[in-house]
């Protein structure tokens, strides 16, 4: 257990130490260390089953950690669950709304559960529906709304009590691109208006590009963290993708200069940092030997792919997760 540290909440919205969750044989989260500064937009990224949701469930006091501790908004998640829940908002992967009730009835229900007065609930509902452009849907039943609108109402539901820390667990899963973008605009507006700390999990990595900082989680451990740009820059200036049937020889040649590639069936991707002349030389050398050749700027997806490949190779069993840099 940690001692509650309200002063710490001024600087750190989330402070987790060795957070672990074991389900029988499965280690869902493995000694996770995580610091999220107050006011930050933080992305916890990783593939399905990597431990993102379990981490959110532990931090929001819904699942008790097997070991380790965490403070959320300065309150210990093990000892002071009620205070933690009073300081956070959670938008789950699946909707938490009552489909048989109207938008207004759902928001009123959520507001009353948080202990808000009728007057405050009315004000906040007006404000949120206005912010999300959902004023006209106010008295419609949630079941009759489109998936995108329903998600927006679910986000409004999660923030009606103005939490200090908002957990968004895959908020755009199952939505089409226009609706995903809309949800992000809402969250952006919310952040601008309230300054709340947002901890996002997603496996759509491009959605995390606006995060102040991201951490990659794999098999319950944080394997790399930093600002999205620094991670992308750290990877290299270009990614060279080659396609062909017998790439083994070429891959071995290139490995010596360019480092470990990411291999997928008949495609190999290499990182490249160097002069344009060198890049042109490599391109000229490769062009006749492969069926496909592409040179492009790296993105967060590449960071994740390299993290998955190379961290797995270099990590010894039992080694601790990387504490995220502040």
């Amino acid at each position, binding site marked *: 257990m940690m001692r509650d540290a309200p002063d710490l909440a001024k600087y750190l919205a989330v402070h987790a130490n060795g957070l672990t969750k074991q389900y029988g044989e*499965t280690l869902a989260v493995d000694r996770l260390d995580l610091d999220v500064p107050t006011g930050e937009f933080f992305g916890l990224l990783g593939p399905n089953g990597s*431990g993102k949701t379990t981490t959110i*469930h532990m931090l929001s006091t819904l699942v008790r950690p097997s070991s380790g501790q965490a403070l959320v908004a300065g309150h210990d998640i093990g000892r002071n669950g009620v205070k933690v829940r*009073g300081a*956070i908002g959670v938008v789950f992967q699946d909707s938490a709304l009552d489909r048989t*009730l109207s938008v207004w009835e759902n928001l009123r229900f959520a507001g009353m559960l948080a*202990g808000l007065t009728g007057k405050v609930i009315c004000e906040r509902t007006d404000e949120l529906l206005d912010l999300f452009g959902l004023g006209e849907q106010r008295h419609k039943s949630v079941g009759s709304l489109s998936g995108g609108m329903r998600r927006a109402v679910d986000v409004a539901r999660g923030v009606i009590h103005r939490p200090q820390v908002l957990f968004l*667990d895959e908020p755009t899963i199952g939505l089409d691109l226009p609706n995903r973008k809309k949800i992000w605009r809402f969250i952006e507006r919310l952040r601008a208006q309230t300054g709340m700390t947002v901890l996002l999990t997603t496996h759509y990595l491009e959605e995390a590009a606006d995060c102040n900082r991201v951490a990659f989680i794999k098999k319950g451990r944080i394997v790399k963290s930093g600002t999205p740009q620094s991670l992308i820059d750290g990877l290299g200036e270009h990614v060279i993708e080659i396609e062909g049937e017998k790439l083994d020889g070429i891959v071995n040649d290139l490995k010596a200069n360019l480092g470990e590639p990411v291999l997928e069936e008949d495609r190999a991707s290499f990182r490249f940092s160097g002069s344009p002349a060198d890049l042109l030389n490599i391109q000229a050398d490769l062009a006749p030997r492969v069926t496909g050749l592409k040179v492009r700027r790296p993105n967060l997806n590449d960071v994740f792919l390299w993290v998955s490949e190379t961290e797995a190779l270099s990590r010894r069993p039992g080694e601790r997760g990387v504490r995220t840099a502040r």
Partner: protein
Amino acid sequence: MNYRPVLAVVQREVLKLFRQRSRLLSAMIRPLIWLLVIGAGFDAMLGRTGADSYKYFLVPGVIGMAMLFGAMLAALSTVYDKESGVMRMLVIAPFEHYWIVIAKVLGAAIAGIIQAVLLLVLLALFGYLGSDIHWGVLLLALLMTALACASLGILTAAWTPTLDNYAVIMNLVIFPVFFLSGSLYPVAQLPDVLRTIAMLNPYTYAVDLLKHANLSMTGPGFAPDFSIATDVAVLAAFIVLATVVACLRFSQESRYSALIHVLAKKGGG
């Protein structure tokens, strides 16, 4: 603990009760069938009339029935809340999780009382109610019966993973509780084995308390079996016990169901 979360749960329960018109309608029709069809049928068969009429004996039983079905089904909606995800709104709210159980019991009890009161109005219109009703006892009986049925419902909900086995609950809980009580026959006249079972059934005491309210003009052959004090004591003990057990079970289960959520989840991270 702020009272608003409890009010929120109660308000939602009442809202849903009036919104689901068919649920309300069937809650009225079911007891009326017993009274108008079965009551009249037995009277014709046994040749009873006036104060000895079986249909008058059935009045407290059908009022109890409205609450047994009404409050139990409302409490069982907790299972629906888990399935539909609404439970997430409750478990993430800033209060101890046992308040969810207490609020649900109160909401379900109020839903049960509303249905009993509506039925009482209908029965008055049909001329089934007498002029010498003991209003204080009736109020007490409605409250205790509704709370007992609601806590039985929440206890059942705590052990019910999905509403798919709704028929099982109906056949294994609601019907035995109803038939093995004094709703349809005086407990004293039951054969030994059935009487013993009826005396172990807390709902028996709820119906007995309703009989004390003297709703219709029944003869001395249909007098209550127990004293008001016994009824109230048994019901109070059951309400507290069932609610506490459900609270304990539920506080384990919220963590347990989160586990299921993580492991069985399609694509959960």
